[in-house]
């Protein structure tokens, strides 16, 4: 039991929502946690994985656990921005007068599932930019706010690259986390088989409302962070830049562009949510370390050599984190010097 009742409520809600999702999704605890962290941090999450791993099911289950509107868009090459945002259509009223009326697209939902987002053209992908960042869209010169909370969960397939349009860096940067969904372990696979091949209906309960989510988002921002922990986050982000004077050698060699300040924001906000979810009132160094890969792996753009060498961005980020930790603690760990 902690001191602040809001924190207790957050922890219980977080755990309840995770439990609802885990009714359907077997394993992938870290993926579920990171999706929830992204949602409470106020960001959007991109899930990458081969087909059949339950990415779409996870998001649908999460939406079912929340008392929020949910929309799903299957991205295809012929999908147009208006198909997502909406458009003005001519309607005729009772008096027979015709006028334009805005027909909102699926983006006007609390939770938007952008399935296989890399199959749409960049033009359509970019239709999400304004909504993801500003929380509103502009159609016909009229700006329309999106419902709050607004949460985009996108999926993409990393192997079927033919006929796909990789997300541009500007679009990728809008996602708080990029999560890699990996194959389940054999025990998890057995549980998936048992759960999905038997006659047993799973009922997902709604455990959280929209206002509660918004309240938790504000609570997250109250979590204090020590200076040296914040410095570590900044150092990690700076260490992804090859131009930085103290950048590690791997960055100089393999990285073309480093993470933007959004990366540092994602890192700290995610760490705050993680701390709260674990019942802590402060951000620890380990929170930053554990969230570095989800927050930065899609923000670090490899150069030609990095691509040619097949450098794994997660490994690269791990090395960057170690280097950044050494930089921030330099001269402070060896107190007897």
């Amino acid at each position, binding site marked *: 039991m902690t*001191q602040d009742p809001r924190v207790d409520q957050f922890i219980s809600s977080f755990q309840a929502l995770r439990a609802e999702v885990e009714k359907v999704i077997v394993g992938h605890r870290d993926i579920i946690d990171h999706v929830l962290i992204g949602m409470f941090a106020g960001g959007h999450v991109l899930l990458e994985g081969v087909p059949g791993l339950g990415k779409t099911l996870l998001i649908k289950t999460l939406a079912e656990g929340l008392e929020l509107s949910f929309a799903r868009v299957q991205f295809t090459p012929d999908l147009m921005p208006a198909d997502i945002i909406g458009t003005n259509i001519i309607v005729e009223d009772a008096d027979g007068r015709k006028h334009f009326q805005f027909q909102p697209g699926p983006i006007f939902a609390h939770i938007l599932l952008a399935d296989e987002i890399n199959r749409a053209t960049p033009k359509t992908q970019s239709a999400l930019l304004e909504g993801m960042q500003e929380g509103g869209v502009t159609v016909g010169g009229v700006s329309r706010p999106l419902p709050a909370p607004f949460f985009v969960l996108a999926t993409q397939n990393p192997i079927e690259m033919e006929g796909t349009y990789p997300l541009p860096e500007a679009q990728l940067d809008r996602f708080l986390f990029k999560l890699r969904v990996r194959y389940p372990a054999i025990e998890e696979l057995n549980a998936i088989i048992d759960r999905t091949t038997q006659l047993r209906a799973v009922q997902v309960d709604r455990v959280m409302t929209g206002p509660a989510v918004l309240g938790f988002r504000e609570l997250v921002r109250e979590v204090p962070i*020590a200076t*040296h*922990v914040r410095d570590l986050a900044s150092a990690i982000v700076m260490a992804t830049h090859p131009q930085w004077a103290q950048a590690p050698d791997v960055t100089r060699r393999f990285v073309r562009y480093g993470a933007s300040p959004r990366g540092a924001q994602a890192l700290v906000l995610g760490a705050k949510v993680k701390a709260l979810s674990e019942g802590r*009132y*402060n951000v620890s160094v380990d929170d930053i370390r554990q969230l570095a890969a989800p927050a930065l792996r899609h923000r670090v753009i490899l150069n030609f050599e990095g691509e040619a060498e097949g450098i794994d961005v997660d490994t690269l980020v791990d090395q960057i984190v170690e280097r950044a930790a050494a930089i921030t603690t330099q001269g402070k760990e*060896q*107190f*007897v010097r």
Partner: protein
Amino acid sequence: MRVPHPDALDRLVREITTQVRWRRAEHYGLRGAFWGAVAAVAPLLFRSVLGPWALPLGVILPATGAVAGALMGLLKRVSPADAARIADRAFGLDERLSTALEWADRGDRTPLVDSLVADATARVEGVQRRQVVRRIFPREARMLPVPVVLAVVLALAPPVPLPRASLPDFSSSAQREEARERGDGAMLEDRARPLTKDKQQRPVFEERDWAQKGATGAAATAGDLSAVFKDTSLANQRPDFNSFLKKGDERLKMLEQTDRLPDLQSDFTSSQYKMVFRKSKELKSGLRDTISPQKLKELLEEMDRLGRKNPGGWGQDVAEGMEALEGGQTDRAMDAMRKALDKMRAQDEAQRGGKNLRGGREADRRSGREGGRGEGGPEDQDFGEGEGMMPGKGKSGSPKGEASQRLRANPYDVGVEGESRRGRKDGFDTNMTGRAGKMSSRLSYMGIIGQYKKAMEDAISREQIPRDFHGQIRDYFQALDEK
């Protein structure tokens, strides 16, 4: 509003700070002790100069260094934030302590900070206190035994004698003599004393020394051996090492070019025939066909040895000669020796033949020998050692020797297919031997013709052959080519 720090947090921070100070005191104390010990070596080294002060200094300096280092470590400032970080890491507080200490005093603290401080306090109170600051030995600590041991050794050992600072004496013996006469050189007194004669000293040094002294023109003193040479040209002559070196260089150059020196032995030692022939001539001692049986036996034994070593067909002749010698038939032994010598010469010439060409006439000669024709004849012309057609060496009565045979001089020389006679080949000759129709060449016809045509062209360009004959000569070789 300032929230007072709970005592538990401050207490933990103070404890960590104290631990850090002591660790620093150890660290810097060891460093100070090392440098103090290094400094203590100096007074112990100069103990003969410092006298009774050396030993106390040798003890005081390391102790002072250690105390000074420890004091510096104790007095260095320890940041509470750094101490809190150590505690966070050591006790698994997940940055609760450092964050609480930092945010408790901030004006923009959130309501969660109060909860954080309370949470941190509760966790700190439950922490099992222990030493969390690890000891870090400085680099100097590993090397500390070196100056300490050195200082102890120097302290226990007798004082190290110090070298006296004085310049060497460059004055001459005459000047020293004058100085000694003046009696003003206590320092020079020892040097001016005549050296005791050292039997081990090399005399050459003495002579050189005295010769140089003589060259200075100083007057000869008693016991100075340079006086021996004072009336000779050597007295004022210094060794000319430059000329010696130059000569030495020339000799060295000659020695380095030994491959260019004539090998006077190789000519005879390389040829078995010549060696035996020379030996037989020596044994004859200028007398015609007279040789002692003993010498003849030795010669035959040597030829037998060479025959076994390098079979050439003269073994049977040598055996006959030995048998005849045992029977007392010296003449027969001499004949056998000559036959063996001829065979040895034949083998030697065969080995020396450059292209080792074998042709019809050689075969004819061999077959003729086998047929009992005996040696000699015009086809046995030879310019080698011994008999031949050279003036004075052949069997011909003509003082100029017999004329060499020319092409087409006899029907056997017509149409020779690229065969040259055996024997010494100082150059290309046109003495074609043998008959082409009887035996086949071991070399290709076209290849030999090509060589001869090249030699022909060289000869035309080299020799003074009338221009009218050039075409005729070329036509001849052209005819050979077409054949």
